[in-house]
């Protein structure tokens, strides 16, 4: 399914006329877009604009009512090995330590080499030897451990839903630096956030959503240019 010769500017993610309805409410009303590989996309918009819905559909967690998503030439579920997903809930077991959590998720991804768990935890500036259960972490630590879980299997694409919310400024800046480094190694990153300022100068593109559609895509973050 993956094309190893994919060039930097070829579309990695293609969305065709995507519609998602929850009963009477249409969260996405016909989204069409292409996203190139190796770039950092910030998805912005008010609550209810459809950002989270879009991200969940890219991750394969929600099915379209109509329309099609193509990731690396396949359906989202088919490309799941190359997708890392992170949301505001930590997606970790509170009662286990960070290392125990990652060891379990490594099994889900068929990763035999345990040292990769330690590597992932170190790369988010946490200590693999910490035996404290994740439930007792600070919010910043928990978000970083959740990011470690998302990157554990070295995916080509990262989908992050509000990774910086309720996180202290320093941890947030550290995470942004980390994501920038990952983009520089060729990963494609999608971040949904309300804190666009954090990504100013880091993100390659700002994608503005409103009322279930993409209204604008800019390469600069500027309030005036948002309309």
């Amino acid at each position: 399914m993956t094309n190893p010769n994919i060039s930097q500017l070829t579309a990695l993610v293609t969305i065709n006329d995507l519609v998602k309805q929850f009963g009477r409410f249409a969260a996405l009303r016909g989204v069409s877009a292409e996203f190139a590989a190796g770039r950092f996309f910030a998805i912005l918009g008010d609550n209810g604009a459809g950002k989270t819905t879009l991200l969940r559909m890219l991750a394969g967690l929600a099915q379209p009512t109509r329309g099609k998503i193509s990731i690396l030439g396949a359906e989202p579920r088919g490309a799941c090995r190359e997708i890392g997903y992170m949301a505001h809930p930590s997606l970790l077991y509170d009662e286990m330590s960070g290392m125990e959590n990652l060891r379990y998720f490594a099994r889900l991804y068929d990763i035999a080499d345990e040292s990769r768990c330690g590597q992932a935890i170190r790369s988010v500036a946490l200590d693999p030897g910490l035996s404290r259960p994740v439930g007792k972490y600070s919010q910043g630590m928990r978000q970083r451990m959740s990011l470690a879980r998302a990157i554990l299997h070295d995916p080509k694409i990262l989908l992050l839903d509000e990774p910086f919310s309720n996180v202290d400024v320093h941890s947030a800046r550290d995470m942004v630096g980390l994501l920038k480094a990952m983009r520089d190694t060729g990963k494609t990153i999608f971040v949904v956030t309300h804190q666009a300022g954090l990504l100013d100068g880091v993100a390659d593109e700002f994608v503005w959503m409103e009322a279930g559609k993409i209204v604008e895509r800019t390469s600069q973050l500027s309030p005036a240019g948002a309309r």
Partner: protein
Amino acid sequence: MSSLRSITFATLAKDIRLEWRSRDAVNSMLFFSLLVVVIFSFSFDPNAEESRQIAGGLIWVAFLFAAVVALNQTWARELRNQVLDAYRVSPAPAAALFLAKALGNFVLVSLLEALMAPLFVIFYNLRALGPAWQLIPVALLGTWALVVNGTFFAAMSIRTRSREIMLPLLLFPISIPAVQSMVEATRILLAGDGSARFWIVLLLTYDVVFTTACLALFETILQAE
């Protein structure tokens, strides 16, 4: 196939480890089972002959209530912090998750039954007049029948309101032939009233049919959002 087995056991091991660390849930379930037995004993207090006739029904109804309490917490840990999303996003097969949860529930419910059964024997002065060893396949097959569908419907209930009532509401009608088999088989074996073979075979058929259905359809309902 090997990844199915390894992920099933990794998940089961993780669940047992987590359950062991916070034994609150299991302890309160054990106490609840004890209460159920005591209340039944107060409500149905016949002499030895009658008790053998209705004990089959009583025991399995008591097991059913205890099983529902256990089944309702099947997915509780996965729903906290939305860990279920992490599983769904991974390439791990849904069937492995289902098997691990069903096996875990089987162990848990069997534990509850192992507590309740001796108490019933004591309170009701029960003695098996038929071939008592047949009670073991009845217990194993019957428990699996409740647990396999219970785990499946617990997952379906995740997507509904009133989750805790939804599980028994879906489980009880479908379980009627299985419960009837368990009750009849137990009654026959306790009263020495012939062979329980038909009911054991029916239970086995029920288990095979629904285990297959659950494994085949679990991915469908897991990804339903």
